[in-house]
């Protein structure tokens, strides 16, 4: 069976990465920003697993498992902080959060 060339996976992951990065930088809703972060991590995982298959080397899959775990931890911490913030400020908008500047 003809296998899919690795460049397709890399292209997919690059597109996902760009969507995620623009989401973090351009969107104003904090929850959407966190979701965009997940997109970036998933782009990385696609890359790692595709390279791992292509190189016939398990390290990439190992890396992907760690990266999935850590992404979960990161989002848990971020949501905890978000809940504390929303309780005090009643807003999800990054634009309204600007007591600190200078």
């Amino acid at each position: 069976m003809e296998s899919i060339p690795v460049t397709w996976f890399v292209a997919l992951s690059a597109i996902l990465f760009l969507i995620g990065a623009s989401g973090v930088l351009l969107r104003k809703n904090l929850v959407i920003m966190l979701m965009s972060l997940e997109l970036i991590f998933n782009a990385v995982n696609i890359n790692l697993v595709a390279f791992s298959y292509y190189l016939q080397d398990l390290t990439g899959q190992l890396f992907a498992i760690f990266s999935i775990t850590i992404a979960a931890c990161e989002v848990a911490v971020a949501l905890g902080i978000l809940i504390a913030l929303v309780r005090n400020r009643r807003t999800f908008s990054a634009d309204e959060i600007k007591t600190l500047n200078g």
Partner: protein
Amino acid sequence: MNFAFSIQDVLGVLPEIIIALGACAMLILDLFLERDKKEWVAYLGIFVVILAAIASWCLINTAEPYVMGRMMVIDNYSLFFKFTFYLATILTLLLSINYAKSADLDYRGEFYTLMIFSLCGMLVMASGSNLITIYLGIELMALPIYVLVGFLKNDTRSNEGAMKYVILGGFASGLLLYGMSLIYGLTGTTDLAGINAALSAGTVSPVILTLSIVLMAAGFCFKLAGFPFHMWAPDAYQAAPTPVTAFMAVASKGAAFAAIVRVFLEALYPAYAEWQMILAVIAVLSMFYGNTVAIMQTNIKRMLAYSSIGHAGYALLGLVAGTGEGSAAIMFYILVYTLMNLGAFAVIIMMRKTGKVAGDSIYDYKGLAKNNKVVALVMLIFLFSLAGIPPMAGFMGKLYIFMALINQGYIILAVLGILTTAIAAFFYIRIVLFMYMKEPEGEFDLVKSCALYIVIAISVIGVILLGVVPGSLMELASKAALLL
């Protein structure tokens, strides 16, 4: 990948194991303590760090540095950084005890414990010899610090600083990881020495290599707060409880340097021509931006945040030199920076009006010298050291960095560095002027605490000693530096 697990592997990572188990023990101890006895958790933390330091001491000059199937390396370079982190953590815990008590923080036990967990991540970062372990270390270090920044749960500023930090920090990890995945795709390995070998063979695509270097440099520069990836730093520094600010400023920056120097010198050295320009630009911009914007700040924690961006620039210059001499200069600089910054933060905590968390405007320092001669004098020593004025250690740190640059022929970078030092002198000396030349506007009510005195004493002695006789420590650093 087959690896047989031996006692050597366990002994090699014994400091990390002690720290991780010790942090768990602290959590358990916290359950059994009354609210006004929580400082015992911090004392246990200090004890755990000292135990780990002893374990690390026994590992100096090990014959077989690579352990855990080449995942970790226990060379003297990593040990030098580890001792810096131990020192920084012990001093920060001492700073925290009084702070947490007088600010009446909730969950004080967890406050101390999170610092120890973060220390564990720093140790892993310093020892990682594989992209996987380095990434794990970075996250293990960063996650507790996100929580610590947002620790004042009911203070909207603290929430806000933590939120900005966690989103930008996550974004930085994303960039770093994407760069790492590309490197893995190019070279087929995540082992640092393996990457070096594959890059030396020179069959990789230069475009993708440059892209992955840029992504990784961006990710690391986020962690060490270099321009233009510094946006989180001033907000997070100002919002965090002051001991956490000190911890972030010294320990997490130091750990980021430990990792970036190892990755760039050990793995990516064959691509030196590509990355030295990128890092030189980041370093020069950080020095100029950090030191210029610091002039406009009236909040001292924010000012120190911008000054720390500048300091990250100086230390990065050592990496741009790309030699063992440069990496030894970075090690020396980080240690000196730890001492002088923690000392300055100890004075800031001392100045804090009892019970109130804020109150850290630079105008509060007006006339401090009038009735509190000793406190003003030690603050002067720390500020002079941060500014890089000769008898203090900060001057020697910068001198070694500039010497490493000049020996490699980067005269222009050294000149730019010296120019920005002159800019930086302005805002440090302004506070000295406030302390000595102005009349006090009110009564000073300094916090009196034995722990703070210990921190200040250690920092003052360190700053003066390393400034006057830096030779022996620098020799130690040169021997431990990554040799090429």
